[in-house]
């Protein structure tokens, strides 16, 4: 309400604010209790109009209003009928409408009175009563409107006059006389009723009757002067509640007269009333804004501003809704102002450990170190703003312009965060600095170069636009036009940042356009112009920015911040195609080990990084890596939830509304999404490339080694279809490709795969497709040889080359590899350039014997487990983990792949010797790393640990096939050489130390097989 004073009382504003106010009570208060306002009115008598309104302020302390009610207005003078009149034009609220109706009716009655038309008066009086009822309903006021009471009195008087005047009475028509009589009776009854009797008598007692508008001024001033003393008394009586009244005084005071103390007191009052019930937040904000203008000295201003930010946050409703954009922008503005102030005054230090509400009466002096400490927590504000922005992006429909517009606010936020960050760096607050840095990182990490550049351009453009540095601006604009197209192109080419880039591009365009027609933007209330500070500039490349910020987090951040920063870096690196260093970071940080213990949003980030890592691997043609990265995400069937990119519409889930709400709150905004289709196709293509040759190599094998379960599932459903139409979905395409690939038809497979639309989302699309083609050829060749080699006596190299359009060398190397791995039973015949097949099909008995051996191994392992369970008292799951891991390791070992569940085994720490011995006794290799990590494990374990580690070190260079899914191995991976050394130099047992060296170069698989058989 105070806004009326200094924001020139916009009507809409008033309407909102006055919602709880009753017209007449406001005017009552004017007379009786709005002491301070009227006193201030007397102070600045020049603006009498505002004075008459100022009453409304005072009814914010509504504890008073209802009590006094009717009594109050009777006591005071009243200027309302006229003020009502001139107000009714503007007022629009329901209550005000009622009142204007009321007054209208009164006026009409008066008119009728003049012509002595009693029948009309009678009707009007009925109407008046009806309207009174309605007005009461709306306003819910206790008292009777004064207008009404006055009307009643007037009517009574007029009636008595008319009755007294016999001539007049006689002259009247019969209907009129009749009406007069009824009117008399009714009025009598009416005015003597309980409800009105008092009011009427009081009204009569009060001799004052306002008839002219002009009187109002005098009256109000007079009444105010009279109630002035009253008000002062009141103020002294109840100071804490008198906030509103004093505020008014302050507001109307000349800013020169306001002292530091006054402002400080005011501020304290606001602070204490904050959060209390019945406090008008809006009003507080306005008050604070005013205070900020009149504050004495920079520190005080800061205090006020900080408080203002807090109050602005209070205005937004709850945590479930997002802050209104306009409000957010206002917050941003205030924050920027704070930052500017801080920048300008280096002596001031914001510190949330400083005493917040000191009783200060004078401007604080600098401390001994020349610093002035002001209480405040910028970081919390920044985080809140970030959260609010995130929330709004979650809620806003990503396909609207609103979303784009919201994204355009990002540069400003970045600028603010950067400023806060710099400020924190300046004052050396290493505790909070990483928090802001992390926020910044989280704004950068998902941006591709194109998006980042677009954002950067946008920043510059906004700066130049708002600050009208035209010379540069024109140049910039031209540049942007070019960039815009580029950005648009790259946006189209990039999935994750597509929206962001598009929006950035659109924004640059918009900014360019708005410069032609300025003013358009600022019209709406919502659009608070939010300039990007001039002194902000984004780093040249996102990589540089990331590096700088991540460094800070790593030096000073806490565990969670470090983990998040690490994940962001991994994501960022993966996004930029640097798979290997991203992978190394992931492995060295051991994030897999404890990601399950982290909070959900970090887990989501982890999943996102993993997905991005998989995509990066895929782009580079590292198929098995890509597969192991993506499979777990994709195979879970909850990929949407895992990446927080939409709610799963599961049939079997019944989530409570709370869970659903929580999940909703976790969702990623659209511009940060990773394209699901791309993920799906990458994952399925990787699976296809791995799975098809594997299936071909052992078509009838009993122990089917399933690489990707989800792939098999899809393939099975696809094969069961009665009719297969042309491919439509991603799955269809890939299944069609799979079919072709199974026949060794690489071109068909390539045709199906390259027809996918998702490739448009991949930057370097050509290279990816080339890679795919190459991979498909190789796998097709392998599949072909697996499937049909039995049908050949010999195969010419040239023929293979033409069939698969590969060069000799490639074919030669693939075929040779297969021969070495004993996948292909044949040999090269160099002179004729052919492969001569040796059909050494295993006889039935042999293959059966092989199967039997497998079964026997399995059984022995199970036995071993059971034995360990009985004797060692191992925990059940440990044991299973170890055993299971061993078994799987064994299987894979045969293909030169390996896998390790050391993590599980490792948990059985301290029971090493016994278990080790037990396993040895059974002649069974304990394959887990447990012994390794246990240090003092049994001799037998040492042995195996040693060669196991050698497996790692030898595999270091060849990439990491399966490790992404396991959590255990990374520890090992991180430092394989240490492990190996450890096993050699371990003093444990003669058996342990000895064979360590010898077993180093033994292939893992072979060894396992020996044991197994």
């Amino acid at each position, binding site marked *: 309400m105070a806004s009326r004073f200094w924001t020139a009382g916009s009507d809409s504003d008033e309407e909102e604010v006055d919602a709880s106010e009753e017209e007449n009570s406001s005017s009552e208060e004017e007379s009786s209790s709005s002491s301070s306002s009227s006193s201030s009115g007397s102070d600045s008598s020049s603006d009498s109009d505002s004075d008459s309104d100022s009453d409304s302020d005072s009814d914010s302390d509504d504890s008073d209003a209802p009590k006094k009610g009717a009594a109050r207005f009777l006591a005071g003078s009243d200027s309302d009928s006229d003020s009502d009149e001139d107000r009714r034009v503007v007022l629009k609220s329901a209550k005000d409408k009622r009142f204007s109706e009321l007054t209208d009716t009164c006026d009409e009655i008066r008119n009728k009175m003049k012509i002595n038309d009693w029948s009309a008066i009678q009707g009007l009086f009925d109407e008046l009563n009806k309207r009174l009822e309605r007005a009461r309903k709306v306003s819910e006021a206790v008292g009777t409107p004064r207008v009404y009471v006055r009307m009643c009195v007037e009517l009574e008087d007029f009636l008595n006059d008319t009755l007294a005047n016999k001539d007049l009475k006689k002259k009247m028509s019969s209907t009129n006389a009749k009406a007069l009589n009824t009117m008399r009776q009714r009025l009598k009854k009416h005015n003597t009723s309980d409800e009105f009797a008092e009011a009427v008598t009081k009204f009569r007692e009060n001799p004052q009757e306002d008839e002219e508008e002009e009187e109002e001024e005098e009256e109000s001033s007079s009444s105010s002067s009279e109630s002035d003393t009253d008000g002062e008394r009141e103020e002294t009586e109840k100071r804490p509640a008198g906030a509103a009244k004093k505020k008014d005084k302050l507001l109307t005071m000349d800013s020169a007269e306001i002292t530091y103390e006054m402002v400080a007191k005011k501020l304290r009052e606001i602070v204490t009333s904050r959060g209390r019930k019945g406090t008008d937040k809006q009003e507080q904000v306005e008050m604070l804004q005013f205070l900020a203008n009149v504050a004495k000295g920079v520190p005080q201003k800061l205090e006020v501003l900080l408080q203002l930010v807090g109050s602005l946050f209070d205005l937004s409703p709850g945590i479930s809704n997002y802050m209104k954009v306009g409000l957010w922008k206002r917050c941003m503005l205030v924050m920027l102002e704070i930052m500017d102030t801080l920048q300008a005054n280096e002596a001031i230090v914001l510190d949330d450990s400083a005493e917040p509400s000191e009783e200060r009466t004078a401007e604080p002096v600098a401390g001994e170190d020349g610093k002035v400490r002001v209480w405040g927590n910028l970081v919390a504000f920044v985080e809140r703003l970030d959260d609010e922005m995130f929330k709004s992006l979650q809620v806003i429909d990503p396909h609207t312009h609103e979303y784009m517009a919201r994204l355009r606010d990002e540069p400003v936020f970045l600028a603010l965060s950067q400023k806060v960050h710099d400020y924190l760096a300046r004052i050396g607050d290493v505790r909070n600095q990483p928090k802001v840095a992390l926020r910044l990182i989280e704004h950068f990490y998902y941006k591709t170069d194109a998006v980042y550049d677009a954002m950067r351009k946008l920043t510059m453009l906004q700066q130049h636009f708002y600050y009208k540095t035209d010379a540069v601006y024109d140049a910039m604009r031209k540049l942007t036009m070019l960039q815009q197209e580029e950005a648009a192109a790259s946006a189209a080419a990039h999935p994750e940042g597509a929206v962001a880039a598009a929006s950035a591009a659109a924004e640059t365009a918009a900014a360019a356009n708005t410069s032609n027609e300025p003013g358009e933007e600022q019209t709406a209330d919502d659009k608070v112009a939010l300039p990007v500070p001039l002194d902000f500039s984004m780093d040249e490349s996102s990589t540089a920015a990331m590096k700088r910020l991540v460094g800070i987090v790593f030096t000073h951040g806490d565990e969670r911040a470090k983990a998040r920063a690490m994940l962001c870096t991994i994501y960022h690196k993966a996004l930029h195609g640097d798979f290997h260093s991203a992978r190394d970071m992931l492995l060295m940080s051991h994030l897999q080990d404890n990601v399950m213990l982290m909070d959900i949003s970090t887990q989501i980030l982890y999943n996102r990084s993993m997905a991005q890592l998989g995509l990066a691997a895929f782009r580079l043609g590292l198929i098995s890596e890509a597969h192991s990265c993506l499979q777990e995400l994709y195979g879970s069937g909850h990929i949407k939830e895992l990446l927080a990119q939409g709610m799963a519409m599961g049939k079997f889930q019944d989530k409570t509304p709370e869970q659903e709400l929580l999940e909703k709150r976790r969702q990623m905004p659209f511009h940060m999404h990773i394209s699901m289709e791309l993920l799906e196709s990458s994952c399925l293509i990787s699976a296809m490339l791995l799975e098809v040759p594997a299936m071909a190599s052992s078509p009838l094998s009993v122990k089917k080694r399933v690489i990707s379960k989800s792939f098999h599932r899809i393939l099975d459903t696809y094969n069961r279809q009665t009719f297969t139409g042309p491919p439509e979905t991603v799955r269809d395409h890939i299944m069609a490709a799979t079919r072709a690939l199974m026949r060794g038809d690489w071109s068909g497979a390539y045709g199906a795969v390259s027809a996918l639309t998702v490739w448009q989302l991949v930057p370097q699309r050509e290279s990816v497709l080339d890679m795919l083609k190459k991979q498909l050829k190789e796998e097709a060749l392998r599949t072909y040889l697996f499937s049909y080699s039995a049908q050949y006596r010999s195969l010419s190299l040239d023929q293979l080359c033409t069939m698969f359009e590969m060069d000799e060398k490639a074919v030669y190397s693939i075929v040779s590899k297969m021969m070495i791995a004993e996948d292909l039973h044949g040999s090269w015949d160099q002179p004729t350039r052919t492969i001569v097949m040796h059909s050494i099909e295993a*006889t*039935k*008995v042999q293959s*059966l*014997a092989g*199967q*039997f051996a497998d*079964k*026997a191994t*399995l*059984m022995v392992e*199970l*036995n071993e*487990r*059971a034995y360990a*369970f*009985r004797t060692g008292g191992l925990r*059940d799951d440990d044991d299973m983990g170890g055993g299971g891991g061993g078994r799987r390791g064994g299987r894979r070992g045969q293909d030169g792949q390996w896998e390790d569940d050391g993590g599980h085994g490792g948990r059985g720490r301290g029971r090493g010797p016994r278990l080790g011995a037990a396993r040895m006794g059974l002649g069974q290799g304990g394959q887990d790393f447990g012994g390794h990590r246990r240090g003092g494990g049994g001799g037998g374990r040492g042995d195996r640990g040693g060669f196991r580690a050698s497996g790692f070190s030898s595999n270091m260079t060849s990439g990491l096939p399966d490790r992404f899914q396991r959590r255990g191995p990374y520890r090992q991976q991180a430092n394989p050489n240490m492990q190996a050394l450890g096993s050699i130099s371990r003093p444990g047992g003669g058996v342990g130390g000895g064979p360590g060296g010898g077993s180093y170069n033994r292939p893992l698989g072979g060894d396992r097989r020996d044991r197994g058989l």
Partner: protein
Amino acid sequence: MATVADLLKRPDVKETVLKTVQLDGQVVLKIMQHCDGAQPSIVTGQLLGLDVGQTMEVTDCFPFPSPEDDGDSSTNYQLDMMRCLREVNVDNNTVGWYQSSVLGQYQTQEMIETFISYHDSIKKCVCIVYDPQRQQRGQLGLRAIRLKDSFIELFKEQKLTGKDLREAGVGWRDVFVEVPIKIHHSSLAQALIADLNPAPGATAGDLERLSLANAGYLSKTMANLIECMDDMLAEQGKVSMYHRNVARQQQQMAAWLQKRNQENIARRAAGEEPLPEEDPVLFKPIPEPSALDQYLVTSQIAGYCDMLGAAAEKGMAKMYLVQAAQKAAQH
């Protein structure tokens, strides 16, 4: 466990323990004829004879009609047959039964049950298992089998869990006992055989025995072995599941006890009556799986292994022979 059980195996002190089964020549021929003729279905018949001290003399036998032949008369058939045989003065004392088997599969639960039911009336009943294929491969396809007494006792008490068997010292080898077979001919028959004067074996051109083609047999046995292995794994799974369940239950029990203890402490402190510390309803003991199947499967596996071993042994010998023969031929 098996080895332990072996060590613990006491020599049978009973005087009447069965040492040999003496089969009359005609019984062998009859069994062979019946079983070979009925291949590949499995047929059974009754053994008749006399229990003489440590020897079980089987002097005659007759086949049971196969179930699909005639359903309702089969029950009466045995009695009628016995009556007829008694009328012609044949031993009509049932001493057991014979049955054919495929590739040495006989260790089944039904077998044991039949044994038990016979055992009620005939303490020393035997079962002659005849394996036609084995016979065809030149090995004696007959084996006389009976259940070990200690096992019978356990079975009757249905104490068949691993724990019970272990405590009784019964290993898987102690379920079935093979009894040596002695073939007995009447003097007349022996005279006849002597009179027939067959050509000496080596010169008879018995080339059947030199056949190298035993792959089918091997693979069949192997496949059976694998099947057994699967059964074994299933059994193993049952046991480990049992152990896991027990462990879990114990954990729960411990947790419950602890909770109850605390509760009781609290109650005692509050001066109330402590709750009982046992709750039998909540934790029913989990029944231990029967170990019988394991035993049967194991002994089956052992049987297969023996067969494979024997076959392989012979095969090897023949291979060497062939190799030598080829070398000789080359020179």
